[in-house]
Every structure is written in C-alpha cells, then in structure tokens.
C-alpha cells in the first residue's frame, strides 16, 4: 500500500468514526443542556458558587457571567505564573515575566493557547495542571455555553430568557468534557504518553552522556487540549512530541477528539430547534469544507513543491516518520479549521500552498467545524448572512428557523464577521510598518510576511498554532497578540448573545411557500459559497502577498 492510499484510508476511518458517534453524542449533549435535573455534585457546586442554576438569564446577564468568569480566569492565571517561583511542585522553575504571563493568561482563557513560551523550560506542574489545563476545560465549556444560548435564541420565542450561564458552564465541564477527557487520557497513556508528577528526570544515553526531561501530566492535558479545541501542549513541539502523541493510533485519536464535539454540536442544534434536518444542513456545510481542505492539503503535501522539499524528495521537513505526510495533513487541516492550534507537524515548513491552506482555514472564522461552541455559533452567523443574501436575490424579508432576520439582526451578524478580519489586517499591517517587529521573522521575503500574518490570524481567531519561526516572545508580540486574542474572543460573543436575545424575543413567523428551505442541499451550497466568497474577498490581498506568492513562485 502506498502512502497516499493509506492517508485516504485514515481519512475514511476518521469520517466513519465521526459519522457513527455524532448522532448519539449530539443528542446526549442536547439532553445535557435541556435537562431539568441537577446531579448531586452539581448542587454542591452551585451552593459553593452561590448561584441558583434555575434562574433564567436575559442576554446581558448571560454576557456578564461570561465576562466576569473570563476576567477572573485571566487574573488568576496571571498571578499563578507570576508566583510560580515560590509555588511548591513547580520543579523549581522561576516566575514568568509580566508580558509573557499576560499573553499566556489571555491565550488560555480565550481558548486560543498561543504559546510564546517554551513549555519544557517554563511551566511547572502547578501552573500547568491547576492553571493552564483548567482553562482548557472551562474556556471550552464557555464556548459551548454561548453556542447553546444562541441556539436557545432560535428555539424559544417571545421571551428574553437564554438559560443560566453557571448551569451551562458546570454541565458542559462535568457531564461532557470531564468523562471523555478522562477516558481518552488513559488510552493515550496506553499508547505511550507519559503521566506523572516527578521532577526533572535524568537517564543515560546509548552512546554515553546523559539526557534530561521533565515529568508532567502529559496525557491528561493532551486529552482535554484536543477535546476542548485548545491546543496548548506541555512540550514546545506540541503533538509532534512523542510524549504527547506517541503512535499513529494516538494521532488519529487526537484528531478525532478535536473534531468530535464541533461536528456533534450540529446534531445538538438540530434537536434543540426541533428539526434534526436543519442540523444536517449545517453539518453538511462543515463537512464539505473540511473534506475539501483536507483533500487539497494532501495533494499539495504529497506533491511537495518548493526548492528545499524537491531537494529532499518529499515534504518531511517538520513532520514525524510515524505520522507521515498523510496523518500530518489531516491533523494540520483539522487543527486550523477548528480553534485548536495543536500541531503534529510544523506548518511553517509545509509547501507554500499547504501553509496557505492552514491560514485560510483560520480565516474562514474557524467554522468548519470550528472550535467547541465557537464553531457552531460562527457557522450560524454565516447562515444568517446566507439567508440574508438569498433574501436580497428574491426580494423577501429573510428568515431563518422561523425568525425574521431584520435590520438589528443583520447589524449584529455583520459586526460579528467584521471583528476578526479587522484585527488580523490592522495588527499585521502595524507590525510590518513599524521598524522593530519585523526583526522577529525567521524567514525572509513572502514567507517572513506569512509568519506575521499567520500570528495575528491565529491570535484573532483564537487558534493558537503558528509559523513558529517567528520570535513571538517580544513585548510587541506578547502584548498585541494578547489584545487580538481578547477582542477576537469576546467581541464576537457580545454580538452572538445580543443576537440570541433579539431572536428569542421574536414571535416565530410561519413558513410559507416562499420561505427559503434551509434544511435542503441548495442552502448548504449557498452557505458554502457565501463563506468562501466573503473570506476570499476579505483576505485575498494579504494571502497574495504571503502564501500565494510563495506557493506560485
């Protein structure tokens, strides 16, 4: 069997596993978010928080919960890093400097996991497990909560009520993320991922001499890092490191974990709005884009254009032998079409076009299938825009799921899709125009520009992967990517929740013969087209200067 065929079979196996799981799992998640019952442990937690989980919240209250919880998360994580030097159980590692602590705190709370630090030498056990990994859980649960609030906006009518943030946060963490992560972590250990709390470990080497590596909760972090589409690993090499991702099977499992919640949430959406076929239309849109991107990536990586890759006879620079070109291509697309940003191979050394595909994946807004929660709400915003475009074509007031898409709804949706492009393009332009930031670039020419464009695309879209040659541990990049991550996460959430509030207050309009059928393949086609055209028009000039210039040279 050749490597191309093996790659295609891995893709098919992954697709099969997702197809098998998404229906029961998506339905189960719908039950989690609509059940009236609280588990006993949840009741204790609500008592501890001092919140009544049955109080319905209007959108401003829901938003305040999201923002307060995230603000406290940033402060706590910042302090933990600043105090690392005096914390026990930190392998004696020193405190992290202020700019980097700010950047890392924001990065993990926003579900980005951009890392300007070297994992192996910077973060001890306490910061890693009680700080960073906690945000891997809760930032994911926040994303899912906001998505569910938007879905409730579509499903409910003549009410301002969107659910209870604390209840959605706790249930997402306890009932969905924790059990799956625990199971996956044990499987990863069985593959060879390490899981211990020992200090720095020194062993002999084959040719003499010694080598040192730090212990750590690699498997437990790895599991939630992928499942919560976070991406911040313990090792600098992330999921390329054999302790994080030891075998071809663990590689496919990690890709599966990345994709399983975002794809399954389309089912949850379908169940909650009372029409699973609406969920299928969204799923089909996500799947079409994901499959198309993966096919393109495999094609360009197996073709290995580019002088250095031609000289080597294959695109193996930055890739591990055990994953090969096929496994690495599937991972790269899945991590950038979601908000994960974990890597099992280094995107900077991909072919010019391959690197461009990873960037374009993020520029779509990470909606195919997107981050946990953020993928679904991002895609529903695009669906609103697609029905609006369709409405313009036929001259009707657009509606989606029985809700009128009027001026207020369109303004909110338009604001949503303008936030990240504005952040990416303004910060990239500023970095290129100023005298010192370009010194951070490792490569020169088009690829150097791509490094900066990639950095802000990744930060503003809360992805976290990088063209890692860029030295991002400077005050400029630590601060500016920090702001890009904050604004790129929370401004869109403001618009999503406001939109949810506006939709929930509406009286549903009955479907008529003239209503656009949003559960049909025609709508999926329209939606795919709208996404590609809007993203293409926004980013084409920037892409032409970077990856296209490199790939077509």
């Amino acid at each position, binding site marked *: 069997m050749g*490597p191309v065929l093996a790659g295609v079979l891995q893709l098919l196996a992954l697709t099969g596993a997702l197809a098998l799981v998404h229906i029961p799992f998506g339905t189960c998640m719908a039950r989690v978010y609509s059940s009236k019952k609280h588990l006993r442990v949840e009741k204790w*937690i609500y008592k501890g*928080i001092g*919140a009544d989980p049955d109080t319905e919240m209007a959108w401003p209250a829901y938003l305040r919960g999201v923002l307060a919880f995230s603000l406290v998360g940033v402060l*706590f994580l910042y302090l933990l890093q600043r105090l690392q030097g005096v914390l026990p159980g930190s392998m004696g*590692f020193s405190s992290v400097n202020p700019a980097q602590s700010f950047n890392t705190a924001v990065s993990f709370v926003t579900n980005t996991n951009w890392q300007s630090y*070297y994992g192996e030498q*910077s973060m001890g056990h306490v910061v890693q*497990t009680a700080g960073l*990994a*906690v945000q891997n*859980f809760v930032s994911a649960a926040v994303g899912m909560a906001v998505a569910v609030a938007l879905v409730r906006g579509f499903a409910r009518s003549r009410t301002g009520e969107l659910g209870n943030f604390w209840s959605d*946060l*706790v249930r997402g*963490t306890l009932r969905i*993320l*924790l059990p799956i992560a625990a199971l996956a972590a*044990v499987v990863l250990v*069985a*593959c*060879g*991922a*390490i*899981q*211990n709390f020992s200090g720095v470990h020194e*062993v*002999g*080497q*084959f*040719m003499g001499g010694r*080598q*040192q*590596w*730090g212990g750590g909760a690699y*498997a*437990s972090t790895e599991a*939630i890092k992928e499942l919560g589409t976070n991406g911040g690993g313990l090792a*600098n*090499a992330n999921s390329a490191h054999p302790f994080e991702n*030891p075998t*071809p099977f663990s590689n496919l499992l990690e890709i599966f974990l990345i994709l399983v919640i975002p794809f399954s949430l389309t089912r949850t959406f379908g169940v909650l709005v009372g029409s699973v076929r609406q969920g299928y239309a969204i799923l089909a849109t996500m799947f079409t884009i994901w499959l198309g991107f993966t096919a393109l990536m495999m094609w360009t990586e197996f073709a290995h254009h580019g002088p*250095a890759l031609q000289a*080597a006879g294959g*695109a*193996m*620079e*930055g890739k591990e*032998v*055990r994953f090969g070109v*096929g496994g690495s291509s599937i991972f790269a697309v899945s991590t950038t079409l979601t908000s994960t940003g974990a890597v*099992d191979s280094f995107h900077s*050394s991909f072919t010019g076009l391959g690197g461009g595909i990873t960037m374009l994946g993020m520029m779509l807004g990470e909606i195919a299938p997107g981050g946990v929660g953020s993928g679904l709400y991002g895609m529903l915003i695009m669906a609103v825009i697609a029905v609006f475009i369709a409405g313009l074509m036929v001259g009707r007031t657009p509606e989606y799921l029985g809700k009128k898409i009027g001026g207020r709804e369109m303004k909110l949706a338009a604001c949503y899709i303008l936030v990240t492009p504005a952040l990416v393009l303004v910060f990239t332009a500023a970095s290129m125009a100023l005298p010192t930031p370009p010194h951070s670039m*490792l*490569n020169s020419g*088009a*690829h150097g520009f791509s490094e900066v464009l990639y950095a802000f695309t990744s930060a503003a879209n809360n992805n976290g992967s990088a063209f*890692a*040659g860029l030295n991002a541990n400077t005050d400029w990049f630590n601060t500016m990517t920090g702001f890009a991550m904050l604004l790129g996460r929370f401004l869109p959430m403001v618009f999503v929740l406001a939109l949810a509030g506006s939709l929930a207050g509406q009286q549903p309009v009955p479907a008529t013969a003239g209503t656009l059928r949003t559960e049909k393949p025609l709508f999926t086609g329209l939606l795919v087209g709208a996404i590609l055209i809007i993203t293409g028009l926004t980013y084409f000039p920037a892409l032409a200067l970077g990856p296209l210039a*490199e790939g077509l*040279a």
Partner: protein
Amino acid sequence: MNNSLLRTTRLLGAALRALLVLTVLTGILYPLTVTGVAQALFPGKANGSETEADGKVVGSSLIGQQGYSLRYFQPRPAHGLGQNSLNTRYRLILSGATNLAADSKELTRQVEAAKAAVVKDNSVPGHRVRPSDVPADAVTSSGSGLDPDISPAYARLQVHRVAARNGLPVTVVDKLVEDHTTGRTLGFLGEPRVNVLELNIALRDLVAKR
C-alpha cells in the same frame, strides 16, 4: 451607583468561587485520578518508556537520540532541537522544528549537505549509494527533533555500512532491520518505521554475541 458596584462585586465573587471549585475538579482531582490509573495500569509507559541495555537505562524508546557513531544506524537530523535558556541549572531538551520554509535557501543547503553526507557515509566498497536512493526522512529534521524512528528505506540504505563497520554479513544486518520494522497500525495507520534506539541496542547485542 453603589448598587451596581455591589452587583459587580457579587458577580465577580461568584465567578471566582466558580473558578476555584472547577479548579479543584479539573485541575487537581482529574489529573491525579488519571495519574493514579496510569501508574497502576501502565507504569512503564506513564514514566517515559525507558529502555535498558545490559541492565542500564539508555534512554526512552520514544525519544530519539543524536550522536551515534557510524558503526550504528543514524537517526534523522534535528536542526530545530534546543537546550533550555531558562532555569539553567537543568540541561533540558527543548523539542522543536527548524520552521524553515519550503523555499528557504538555508533549508535547501541543510538538505543538500545531509544528502551528500548520507551518500558518502553509506557508500562502501562494492556498494554505491546514489543520491536518488536517499529517502526524504534521512535529510530533513522532524517536527519534534526527537523523532525516534526512521523509515525502513533509510534503515535499509544503511545496512551495507553497518555490516562493514561491524564485520557482520549483510544478510544478518538486513534481517535485523526487517525484524525491527514496524508496519502500519492495522495496515493503514501512519507509516512503516524502524525505532533507531531499539535497533542499535539489538545491533550491539548481536556484535557482542559473535
């Protein structure tokens, strides 16, 4: 005004308590439970898959090593590997890739130099290696810089050299490589590979026995 300040304080208090409770669950109980299960079920793997030769630990079978002499099978290049610059009382390995672009002159130079060295080192009397025989993994750095494996093609390419340097028949070394080749998992997952550390340990045993 006072009222809204009070409300904000109360909200932040609730948020802090929520964070602390969830930290206990996901940041303390979860990793400790997983560690307990892992240490009970898979202690060897959970502690780094250490590999022994002659009763001494010689590394981890998952972590590729550099610096093998030409008597032994060579690993992939690792130009992106680093050494810690913080907390310098340790000498930690920093995993990493070169991050050089496909059109980088520096990368092309690295690849060409590696290819010339592979051809030169592995061409022994009676066996010439052509540049086109050299597989891509032999001349490129991996993502982690710690890739424990090489492709079977690169292992086979080194057989004549290893046989000559150790005074072994080529067929014996060929068999050794074949025995240490791992195929794709379930026939289609990943790529076939040879673990360099394990192969070299077996090679040293073989030489010692003869």
